[in-house]
């Protein structure tokens, strides 16, 4: 029992560390690599849950996370960045230090919140949910503090990593939901890819700031 807890804690904790690393990293290729690492950790965590909870269909989700988010998407984005000539350095809206401190604050907040609320649940669930919420909030923070469309996409995908972690932590959640979450990742990427490509057609970079000159609100 303790073994099971230790391993899942290890994997989820490393995912959290990866989320922080995503926050401070400012080179695009490094961001992609760390995201791939986080996806691989996710697939390991899901696989472990599948083993301990004895729900073999979770292995499918694990495999999907590994192949799609761990390998295919980072490679595809890598190629796209090279082809489109996207800026290799990512600018941050707020400085790295402040972003990291915000990240720490959000993590503490989510831990406090979930621990307080799930007093009656079992330890796996509480832990998984707390760390998952932290990863979700950090993913959102990454989306907010970045100036480059590709890293915003990565931020969103790391948010979904957190969601999948939460879903597997909740014991017994039916297969329908898991497959659909994975399915949505697929579609989301398709949309993204189409987007980034289209964005590239119109501007010289994928910098969101360039997009914002087309502010619609005063129209």
């Amino acid at each position, binding site marked *: 029992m303790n073994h099971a807890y230790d391993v899942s*804690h290890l994997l989820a*904790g490393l995912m959290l560390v990866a989320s922080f690393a995503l926050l401070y990293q400012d080179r695009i290729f490094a961001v992609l690599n760390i995201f791939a690492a986080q996806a691989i950790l996710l697939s390991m965590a899901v696989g472990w849950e599948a083993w301990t909870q004895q729900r073999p269909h979770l292995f499918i989700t694990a495999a999907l996370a590994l192949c799609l988010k761990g390998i295919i998407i980072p490679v595809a984005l890598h190629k796209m960045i090279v082809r489109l000539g996207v800026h290799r350095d990512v600018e941050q809206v707020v400085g790295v*230090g402040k972003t*990291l401190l915000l*990240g720490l604050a959000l993590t503490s907040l989510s*831990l406090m919140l979930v*621990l307080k609320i799930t007093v009656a649940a079992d*330890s796996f669930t509480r*832990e998984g949910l707390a760390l998952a919420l932290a990863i979700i909030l950090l993913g959102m923070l990454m989306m907010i503090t970045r100036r480059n469309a590709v890293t915003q996409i990565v931020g969103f995908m790391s948010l979904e990593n957190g969601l999948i972690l939460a879903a597997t932590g909740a014991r017994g959640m039916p297969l329908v939901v898991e497959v659909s979450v994975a399915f949505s990742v697929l579609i989301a990427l398709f949309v993204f890819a189409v987007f980034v490509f289209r964005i590239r057609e119109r501007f010289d970079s994928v910098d969101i700031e360039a997009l914002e000159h087309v502010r619609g609100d005063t129209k």
Partner: protein
Amino acid sequence: MEETLTLLFGQTIQMFLVLLVAPAITGITRRTKASFMRRQGAPIIQPYRDLIKLVRKESVIAENASWLFRSAPYAILAFTWVAAALVPTFASGLMFNWAADAVALVALLGAARALLALAGMDVGTSFGGIGSSREMMIATLAEPAMLLVVLTMALTAGTTRLPEVAEFLISAPVTVRVSLALALVALVIVALAENARIPVDNPATHLELTMVHEAMVLEYSGRHLAMIEMAAQLKLVLYISLIACLFLPFGMAPANTGPAAWLLGAAAYLAKLGIGAMMLGAWEVSIAKMRVFRVGEFLGGAFVFAFLAILLAFLTREVLN
């Protein structure tokens, strides 16, 4: 009565052991660096020779130096030696067990650092000023991280007393924990910063742009310099012993065991020191020194790791109770 005598004896041995071993550790580090660079390198006992040479020489002091300048080296050596003597090395449960509190340790080291910084500024040279201000900047960032690491261990073991933490880690079935790994990384970064090692500071440099620790002690000579060098070497031993005690306490003799266990513990301890010194040497030749402005980021990383370690340790504790 007999027991207290044994414990007192053990504590005394520990005190002198660290003192004797410290220059050798620095020697091993330098030798490792040299061999990586395909040089012969000085023999391992060279630091001893350097210390003896310095003690014999006359101490030249600037005219406008104050009493602080003259007395600081003694105080610095005293503080550092006390701190190094308290960290459990080959056995826990020795005579001054109750005083070996991690927070007290941080305070002692802080006091030593403050004195050194003041002494650096005392003579009024610009080198000293630069060194002191940089040292203080590094300390401002490194101490919180160190304290957080201490607190993480306290959360895990339930106490801040180092011997008891070591015993807890030996006895309790603590498996791989992310929080401990993160705390280890944070502590290593802090150790590098505090000991003025690459990538924070270069111990072998005398270029103004890159000096921190060396800049502060530039004015010292003779026996004063010997004491400060000794203190720096003791600090290195202290940090390596601290890391070994907190994270790798295998082989350490638990409380209430006899001299046989102590011998085993001493062997383990010396082995750990040697390995740590060699790893430090290898690390130093494989990494470049950072710009001073980036040291903040580096130590900020240590802070983040330590904070995460505490959060995760807190989470584990809450969830498993």
